[in-house]
């Protein structure tokens, strides 16, 4: 055993510079270190001849030399002892690494932001603290132990227009809940709009005082909320029919088939002309009366060639007696 160790040590002494190589490495150009990323950049030109002779050996020695230099550089850094290990403090990395993911897209503005931009409303910065009148001290504007906290009111005045038996405290609580729900709905709608996903169109934010428009919309929504989608629901006496309910209308393409369009229009014209009664009663009666009038005029001309009275007087008297046309709406100019 001892003889073996001696043999190994003697062997190492004999190899000397060839065996265990030293920590000193000679390089014409210094390496560039990025110790933050634990990298070293070797700009030394390669000797093409030595690579071709023995590529494996060349590469191994090159790697060994460069690693040695890197480790030397790391040993140069300030080190400290942490849990029985010596740790070197790495500096900030110097090489810029490109982003892994793309830059985040700017969020599309919400409905309020668009409105504010349109109107030119600026965001007013509010301070964190507000003055609490009762407690006479500065408290935070919102949150735990806030100033002017409405929920901590121990008495609420009943307004004159309100029902005396109504619970004002409960009213405040429900109002707050409704506001929160409405805000949540707006928030979700903004998100949905930003992601261009579908939002249910049947939504009416609950309001305290619904306007006329809100009420009519609520009526239509409620009417359609039956199994047959409101087809058999009776209409209220003054209910206005909804013109474009929900879905977007679909129109023919702008430059469609012109001949098809023409055909449809001609058919429509044919249907319209068929619907019109061929024998218009009024016109028939008018025509008949006109003929009678002409006959009368001709007769009178024969009888009185010179002293002809105005046909008007005679005809009118005659016409009063007879049954007049049934459907003309006279405007009172009848003599």
């Amino acid at each position, binding site marked *: 055993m001892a003889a073996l160790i001696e043999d190994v040590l003697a062997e190492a002494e004999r190899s000397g510079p060839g065996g265990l190589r030293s920590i000193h490495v000679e390089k014409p150009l210094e390496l560039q270190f990025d110790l933050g990323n634990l990298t070293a950049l070797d700009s030394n030109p390669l000797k093409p001849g030595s690579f071709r002779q023995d590529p494996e050996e060349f590469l191994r020695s090159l790697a060994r030399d460069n690693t040695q230099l890197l480790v030397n550089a790391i040993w140069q850094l300030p080190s400290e002892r942490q849990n029985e290990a010596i740790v070197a403090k790495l500096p900030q990395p110097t090489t810029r690494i490109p982003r892994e993911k793309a830059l985040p897209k700017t969020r599309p503005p919400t409905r309020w932001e668009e409105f504010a931009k349109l109107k030119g409303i600026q965001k007013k910065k509010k301070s964190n603290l507000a003055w609490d009148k009762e407690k006479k001290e500065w408290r935070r504007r919102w949150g735990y132990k806030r100033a002017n906290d409405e929920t901590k009111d121990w008495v609420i005045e009943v307004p004159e227009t309100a029902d005396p038996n109504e619970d004002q405290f409960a009213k405040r609580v429900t109002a707050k809940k409704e506001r929160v729900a409405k805000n949540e709905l707006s928030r979700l709608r903004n998100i949905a709009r930003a992601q261009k996903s579908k939002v249910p169109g049947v939504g009416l934010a609950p309001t305290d005082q619904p306007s006329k428009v809100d009420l009519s919309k609520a009526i239509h929504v409620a009417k359609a909320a039956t199994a047959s989608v409101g087809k058999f629901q009776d209409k209220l006496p003054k209910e206005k029919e909804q013109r474009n309910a929900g879905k977007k209308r679909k*129109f*023919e*393409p*702008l*430059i*469609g088939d*012109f001949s098809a*369009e*023409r055909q*449809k*229009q*001609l058919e*429509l*014209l044919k249907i*319209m*002309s068929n619907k019109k009664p061929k024998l*218009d009663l*009024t*016109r028939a009666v*008018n*025509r008949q*009366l*006109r003929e009678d*009038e002409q006959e009368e005029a001709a007769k009178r001309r024969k009888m009185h060639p010179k002293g002809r009275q105005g046909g*008007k007087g005679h*005809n*009118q008297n005659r016409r009063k007696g007879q049954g007049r046309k049934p459907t*003309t*709406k*006279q*405007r009172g*100019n009848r*003599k």
Partner: protein
Amino acid sequence: MRPLTEEETRLLFEKLAKYIGENIKLLVERPDGTYCFRLHKDRVYYVSEKILKLATNISRDKLVSLGTCFGKFTKTLKFRLHITALDYLAPYAKYKVWVKPGTEQSFLYGNHVLKSGLGRITESTAQYQGVVVYSMADIPLGFGVAAKSTQDCRRVDPMAIVVFHQADVGEYIRNEDTLT
């Protein structure tokens, strides 16, 4: 810009039929080219296919007018005929009214036609029939609605209205801004 729906086409044809009767098919089907009706901002335009294809290159908010404007649809879907349609109504009109030279100016200022201003009227015009108003020189001046049938026109007193004014050529100057 879009083609008219069935409902809108029906309303348009009903209105036109009041003035030109069954001659609408001469407007729909023409020997000298394909013409069609298109709706843009509630106005109905009668436009040839060639011009229509050119107009598709203009954006909706920049497009003012194309072809001939026949009229517009009101918010409650009633069709109102404009004076710009006169060029297409006049040749096909079924019932015409000729107006005396003195009353021409009055009509062109927007007044109704009285019996005293009436020159000629087509025989067998029914009451409330759509008529095209001409001057004595056969120049179309506008259109209106017959307040009295031809029969009644003969018997009524001279100060009575015989034709209700609906549109006249003077509107090109009076309502320049609203016509397209």
